């Protein structure tokens, strides 16, 4: 027994040489080893804090750090490259994130529709056999355009089109139009995904919108009538918005494949010059007749207004006034070449 006692005493003496690693605390400290964090809820010593602040703070921090280090040294350790590494547990302190956690991708309009209808994407073959070229041709991607160029080196101008139409340009325009449409649909999908109300033309308000956007908004607004803006009045020098994607915004507007008019440029210019140089008043016989008739009618009406009104006029059928004779069949003058004159005026 003496041996044991002696060993224990020796150990105790050895320990006394060093300063202790234990720390006494009134309240228990909260330690989060995962973030190397310790929170000490014990009251501060006000007198010491006032008298010798730095020493007090240093001592306080030392004690708390000792507690933390004690906790760390209790963790499982392993040897990595000649240094001892402790495995830290998951931190218990929850910190805010920079962004929301990523959610599922919102479906596009088509994807939603396809899901409802159960439409699945059919996989196309990478290459298809082309009878005309007599070889295998890529359906998409690398060298597809080249193959198409080989195939469509000549294009037929349809019977009803202007013979001078550039069908190749037309094709390019059609493609550009499609790209623009796609872009707009992509934007719309974004708007839908963000769940914000947006005007169709993307009008951003007078402060934010550029002049082009404003012009587009005006054009779209004007053409948003039942008759696609055909009867809207115009300012003297008003321009219409042009460019890719404008037509797509106009509801019900027909999509023209090409912005090049059917008339070639030279011809159109010649027409313009001709109309300026040969400035003769155009004689529209029908219009002249109708104007004449209108004048006559006005005169007649003015005469009848001057005459004293008959008392006790016709009673009964509303306020409709019968002016002139009752129309009879087979007696009127015919206007040859003018349609839609016969019979009741249809509204």
């Amino acid at each position, binding site marked *: 027994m003496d041996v044991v006692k002696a060993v224990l005493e020796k150990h105790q003496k050895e320990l006394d040489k*060093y300063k202790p690693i234990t720390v006494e605390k009134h309240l228990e400290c909260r330690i989060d080893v995962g973030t190397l*964090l310790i929170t000490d809820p014990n009251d501060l010593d006000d007198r010491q804090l006032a008298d010798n*602040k730095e020493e007090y703070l*240093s001592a306080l921090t030392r004690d708390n750090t000792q507690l933390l280090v004690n906790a760390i040294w209790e963790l499982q350790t392993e040897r990595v490259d000649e240094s001892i590494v402790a495995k830290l547990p998951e931190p218990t302190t929850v910190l805010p994130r*920079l962004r929301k956690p990523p959610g599922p991708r919102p479906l596009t309009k088509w994807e939603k529709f396809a899901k409802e209808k159960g439409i699945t994407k059919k996989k196309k073959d990478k290459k298809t056999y082309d009878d005309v070229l007599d070889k295998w041709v890529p359906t998409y991607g690398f060298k597809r355009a080249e193959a198409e160029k080989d195939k469509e080196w000549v294009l037929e101008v349809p019977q009803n089109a202007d013979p001078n139409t550039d069908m190749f340009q037309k094709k390019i325009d059609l493609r550009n139009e499609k790209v623009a449409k796609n872009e707009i649909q992509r934007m719309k999908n974004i708007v839908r995904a963000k769940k914000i109300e947006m005007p169709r033309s993307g009008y951003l308000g007078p402060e934010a919108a550029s002049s082009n956007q404003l012009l587009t908004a005006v054009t779209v607004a004007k053409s948003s009538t039942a008759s696609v803006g055909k009867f809207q009045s115009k300012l003297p020098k008003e321009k219409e918005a042009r460019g890719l994607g404008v037509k797509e915004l106009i509801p019900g507007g027909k999509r023209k494949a090409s912005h090049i008019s059917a008339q070639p440029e030279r011809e159109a210019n010649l027409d313009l010059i001709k109309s300026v140089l040969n400035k003769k008043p155009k004689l529209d016989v029908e219009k002249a007749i109708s104007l004449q008739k209108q004048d006559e009618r006005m005169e007649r009406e003015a005469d009848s207004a001057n005459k004293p009104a008959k008392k006790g006029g016709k009673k009964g059928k509303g306020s409709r006034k019968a002016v002139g004779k009752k129309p009879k069949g087979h007696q009127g003058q015919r206007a040859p070449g003018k349609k839609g004159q016969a019979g009741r005026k249809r509204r």
Partner: protein
Amino acid sequence: MSLLRIRKPKTRKGKKVLLAREPQLIESARTMLFVDGRKCGGNVKLCMKDLQQLKKPLVKVLNRKNDITPFDDPSSLEFLTMKNDAALFTFGSTSKKRPDNIIIGRIFENEVLDMFELGIKRYQSISEFKNEKIGACVKPCLVFNGPKWAQTEELRRLRNYFIDMFQREKVESIRLQGIEHVLSFTVTDDMSILMRSYKILLKKSGQKTPRIELEEIGPSADFSIRRTKIASDDLYKLARKQPKQLRVTKKKNISTDALGNTKGRVHLGKQQTGSIQTRRVKALKKSPEEKRADRQKKKVALKAAAVEALSTAD
């Protein structure tokens, strides 16, 4: 590619940058943006320099003066953090009304989440302490002293902010010799925050765990809290929401006993004793009589089948 990006990237690098700015499941370490105000000098500049040194390399420093008042209109500050992809910011300024002013804050979804305005009452920079410093990129231990830290919501948020600011990266393991820096934050009764920074010296204790001694290396600062803007509880809760995929789900039928052995319970279906393959034993073999009977049976069956086939053919 995400649907919610309006402008399509033109280059591969641009695409990478934009993808990095999208919501991530596991977010990278939080960088801090340093912005100067209209006037920014003296202690404020010193403090910002020291913070940059502590936070390196997770810093972005803007050196121009900015006419920003974050508490009145944080939009331009939000823009700057968005552009620099920073989660935290420090804004330093000094004026007659608020001398030595430092605004620290953090961002959630490109908007300011929390913002704290601290006035520097006393400052001693790192360079004023003439002693050996610690290495770069050391994960510091954080010590919060004082009962006040848990008492008001503002201080709780500020404590959370300080943890966010100084904890650097989340690590799975740490080298024991690499624990060499401690930052202490003490809140006193007059609501001033005393920030101290010490180097940890590991001394022998005669045991496995070392005895700790501290040596002040700076910066050392006394802050007073001026204005604060903290997020509403709902927003704060939303910001701290962790993604579902990262939540640890408990695995069924697996347990660990006291000795650290993992035990699993396995469920087997019903045994099919009929079709089971057993050992071949002579006793279970068929006897010659049984074999003969089997052969006889087969013969009879064959004959019957032949008769039937003949009758149908007729």
